[in-house]
């Protein structure tokens, strides 16, 4: 009885958390290099649209994913140019991307509303899926979910165990020293923002090609902003990002289960849960740490590095 309640709940938890996980991982890479990309919500929705439209027209899910990554890369390139080359206000640039991305995706997506396109189906991993509860929840999911698990490990190893990861973190922590070490700060930041954008785009694609499986107006519904908060919640650490996204996937799961049970609480209040939880989580994080440094924020996050003025 309890298992029949628990397994669907955990299943939704994983599935709802995946798009967030891609986005949080992408943003972590970008912020670790020192660039605050608040455009997630816009990049995600354009990724979701590009992924769905391409998969719908071509019938190929792989092409859909590629399109989502390209779309994510292109939008992030704008942000990279403005924040790395121009030294513009990164907050405003991010907000601009959200407005632009949301408008663009909703405009171009209009003909696709309600269309049934291809979607990722579950692929059980033999043997592992026989483990009680965990097997069903973790190893009988769609391929993008497995991809997200692997990415957590790869990005963690990259950031903490490789030379390039060290350079990237140095760029975000102390660009002057990184520059003195011979690291090309501008190049690293561009690459980090663009690769981060590709992952964020994939997060959008998981919504349109698996979790929601279709296109609708304003599909992302604020998930991008939740992701921004989760990067802080996870202290810019990919391993913790996984846990953070599980918690938020769980909140969405609980919301669905409660709606299904028909409890008298109006759905409007249930739908507020992720947004209110985000605010509460941000509060708890800062409550328990205090200063920016202790949070684990990269030292030069949201700071323009101007090589010419260093001389």
């Amino acid at each position, binding site marked *: 009885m309890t298992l029949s309640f628990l397994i669907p709940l955990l299943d939704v938890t994983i599935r709802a958390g995946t798009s967030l996980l891609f986005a949080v991982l992408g943003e972590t890479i970008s912020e670790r290099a020192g660039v605050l990309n608040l455009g997630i919500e816009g990049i995600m929705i354009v990724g979701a649209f590009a992924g769905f439209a391409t998969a719908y027209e071509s019938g190929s899910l792989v092409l859909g994913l590629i399109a989502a990554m390209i779309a994510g890369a292109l939008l992030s390139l704008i942000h990279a140019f403005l924040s790395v080359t121009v030294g513009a206000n990164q907050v405003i640039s991010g*907000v601009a991307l959200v407005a632009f991305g949301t*408008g663009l995706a909703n405009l171009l997506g209009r003909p696709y509303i309600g269309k049934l396109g291809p979607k990722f189906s579950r692929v059980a991993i033999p043997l592992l899926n026989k483990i009680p509860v965990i097997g069903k929840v973790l190893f009988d999911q769609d391929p993008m979910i497995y991809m997200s698990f692997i990415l957590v490990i790869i990005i963690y190893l990259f950031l903490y165990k490789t030379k390039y990861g060290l350079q990237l973190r140095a760029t975000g922590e102390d660009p002057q020293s990184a520059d003195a070490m011979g690291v090309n700060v501008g190049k690293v930041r561009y690459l980090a923002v663009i690769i981060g954008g590709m992952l964020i785009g994939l997060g959008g694609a998981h919504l349109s090609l698996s979790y929601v499986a279709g296109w609708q107006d304003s599909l992302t519904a604020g998930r991008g902003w939740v992701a921004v908060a989760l990067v802080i919640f996870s202290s810019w650490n990919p391993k913790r990002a996984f846990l953070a996204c599980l918690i938020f996937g769980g909140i969405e799961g609980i919301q669905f289960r409660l709606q299904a049970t028909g409890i008298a609480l109006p759905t409007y209040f249930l739908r507020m849960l992720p947004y209110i939880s985000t605010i509460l989580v941000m509060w708890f994080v800062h409550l328990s740490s205090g200063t920016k440094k202790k949070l684990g924020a990269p030292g030069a996050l949201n700071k323009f590095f101007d090589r010419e003025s260093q001389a």
Partner: protein
Amino acid sequence: MNFILNRKLRISLIRKRESRKIIKIITPIISLIVAFFISVGIFSLAGVPPLTTIRVVIFGAFGSFHNFSETIVKMIPLLLTGLSVTLAFKVRFFNIGAEGQLIFGAITASGIALFLPNIFPDIPRIVLLPILILAGMIGGAVWILIPVLLKSYYRVSEVITTIMLNYVSILFMQYLYDGPWKDQHGWGFPGSARFVESALMPRFFGTRIHFTIILALGIAILLYWLLRNSRLGYEISVIGLNERAAQYAGMNTKKKLIIVVMLSGSIAGLAGVGEVSGVHCRLFEGLIAGYGFTATSIAWLARLNPLAVIPVAFFIAALSLGGDQLQIQLALPVSAVQIFIGIILLIILAGDFFLRYSIKISERE
């Protein structure tokens, strides 16, 4: 910074010491024009011929006296939210939540408008309206209180909290007009019941231009004066430049920040009052219009100058109204206008690049 073009030529970017004032005025205007044409290009991708877009937008905004008056109607909330964001940005509080504060202000005002006349049936307009305005301004200020307290006491990013509260306020409003404040005769219309006559703003010249415009223009002038000539204005600019320095100088920056930001929220709340009491005559779905982003873009285009917010809000209003016409006539989604808002911001940010650098093409030796 150098880019080598080919073997002979080199493009160098030279940093300028000071940019001339005229360039500072011209860049936003050029940004607006460029953004308009890029947007037209994007609409043509969605199947709308460029000339049709231009014609519909221009006619929609200026084509007749009625359309022009509607542009002014649209300008009122944009002017107020633009001023609200300007004030908050002055103390480096990135309030992206003008939409939430507008909606919450509209909710508190609607609460008064819907229920106070039940208790006092003969309450005259001259008494009811000031109560509405006050209620809306308090509503907007209260809605921004959580983000500003979290920011000043716990350093929580206001960008995220104000945006999260936008979503919460929208859901709360929908709950109200779908539930307890449902219009019994509305046949599923997404709004509350209509307000009584005494809760409606006076309108001018037989149009929908309402009394709030006078308040909005007054606030623009007041803010301009306040920021330039008053002690508070001086303190605001010091906090905006360097909060720590302000603290060392003995200012209670926390208290000042909270006061200034709550003022910002109350101005956005007033915009909400204007919308429900001056335009829609009820709490209504149409309040959801992406004001948060639009207001940010207006404040940035106006370079945080309250008087400059007036013409900028007017132009953005004209374009939004044109955008509404596109939506009605050509079935484009409401959020299409956001494309334009986003592009303007991106271009003006990129434009700063040319404010700071001049391009020099030289021959390589």
